[in-house]
């Protein structure tokens, strides 16, 4: 088991948002969390990566319980997170953003920045073209590439993506999903939240429906796509 959540409870101040969520994920998988606006999808991801503290329950990752650890420690376990919004340093150049992605590994002998950079440039060629440009000056789609590339520099054991296709022009959405499949096929497991639920589930090994901070359905991507109940309640008619 790569990632295993057990009865995770979390929230902000007095507001409990995630009410005891369980989930499991195997190495190599793509798992997508879907659900209505405000269901707590982002909050659940934030809890997994330590941005929001787990109040109860456990977050086992590769056999270590990460619950209660701060984000700067969790990234050292090989879990890299791309936030839903504001996921780059706008006043840093693209290259500097990528260097920040390598922060936990810098100086470690197993890590070679230039090797990883080559690989990330292969995946996201636009980053090489724009390396010296201020990241905040790029288009929304390119900024999303910077964010993904920054998370991929470490060659993570798990890539956590919050709505990677949000705000992208329609033709870029497909491109983004192809990228995600490509990254996964190259060996990186992916846990993501998506509003483009059908497109995401089609490319996922498994899906989870989160509603009101609880998981309502779990199954393979196909099972969720085929379920009438899920379709009616959560997939809309796209």
């Amino acid at each position, binding site marked *: 088991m790569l990632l295993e959540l057990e009865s995770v409870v979390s929230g902000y101040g007095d507001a409990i948002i995630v009410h005891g969520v369980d989930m499991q994920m195997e190495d190599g998988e793509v798992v997508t969390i879907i659900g209505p606006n405000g269901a707590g999808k982002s909050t659940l991801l934030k809890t997994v990566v330590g*941005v929001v503290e787990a109040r109860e329950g456990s977050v086992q990752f590769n056999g270590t319980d990460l619950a209660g650890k701060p*984000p*700067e420690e969790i990234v050292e376990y090989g879990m890299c997170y791309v936030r839903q919004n504001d996921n780059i340093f706008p006043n*840093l150049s693209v290259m500097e953003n990528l*260097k*920040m992605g390598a922060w936990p590994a810098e100086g470690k002998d197993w890590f070679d920045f230039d090797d990883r950079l080559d690989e990330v440039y292969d995946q996201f060629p636009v980053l090489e073209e724009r390396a010296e440009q201020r990241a905040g000056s790029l288009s929304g789609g390119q900024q999303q590439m910077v964010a993904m590339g920054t998370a991929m520099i470490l060659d993570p054991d798990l890539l956590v993506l919050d709505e990677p296709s949000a705000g992208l022009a329609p033709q870029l959405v497909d491109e983004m999903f192809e990228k995600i499949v490509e990254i996964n096929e190259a060996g990186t497991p992916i846990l993501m939240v998506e509003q483009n639920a059908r497109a995401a589930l089609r490319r996922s090994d498994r899906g989870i429906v989160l509603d009101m901070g609880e998981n309502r359905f779990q199954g393979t991507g196909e099972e969720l796509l085929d379920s009438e109940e899920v379709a009616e309640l959560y997939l809309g008619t796209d």
Partner: protein
Amino acid sequence: MVLDPQLVWNGLVVGSIISVSALGLTLIFGILNFINIAYGDYMAAGAYVAWAVNAQAGLPIGVAIVAGILVMSVGSVVLDKLVFQHFRTRSPITLLIVSIGVAFFIRNLLRAIWGPSGHFYDLPMEASPSFAGVRFSVEQVAIIVVSLLLLLGVYVMLRRTRIGIAMRAASDDRMLSRIRGVDTEKLVLYVWLIGGAIAGLSGIMLGLDAQIRPNMGFTALIAIFAAVILGGIGDPKGAVAGGYFIGVAQEVSVAVIPSEYKFGVGLVALIIGLLTRPDGLFGEATR
């Protein structure tokens, strides 16, 4: 109107001091996100420590300057541990108010130890040479050169070093820098070490240019804030440009308004800046 070169020169000297102190203040703001009102009093404390080493203990001014810088560098970290750290998660307003308390404490401590009257450094007497009708002192030349070197050094640090890039990243978005793995508490430590050292140095430069008094730094704060805000708060390059601008504007104004009012220039620049350029001289784009 023809600019009097002497006034421009004086403005460059004052502008250097304002630039350096504004840079220190803006670095601290970038990471800690609060306006440290005590910064002017850190400057004064640096000036006094150097004065004690120089005039009271009789050591050369070079040694005194290093002592003043080191004491303020370490002193800033100590003050952070004793005071500011406990309010880290509170609102910027709370921190601002706490820093007003720290400011009063330092100023009155200086007054209690060294008295309310002014002091001067014990400097070797040198003639003031003149060039193209501008009279200048060795201290003034030193202030300008040292300021430029320091500004260059900080620029290189922020652009080229790992820690410097992380400081800019944390100043952009502190939580995102933690997500990328930065231990921001460690950054806070470095930023106090550097910001405190810069405060000490700029206080000493202020003391070299004028005189050493308990409220010397506090009086300079308006001009420093004006530079920081004019430059775009948290933008180091803007703070430096703002500093030189305010310094020159303040000194050149003496040609047209009574010199007691020259400190008002900073205030006016501050107000005009806030009204017309709320994002600073360069906007967000050059940070």
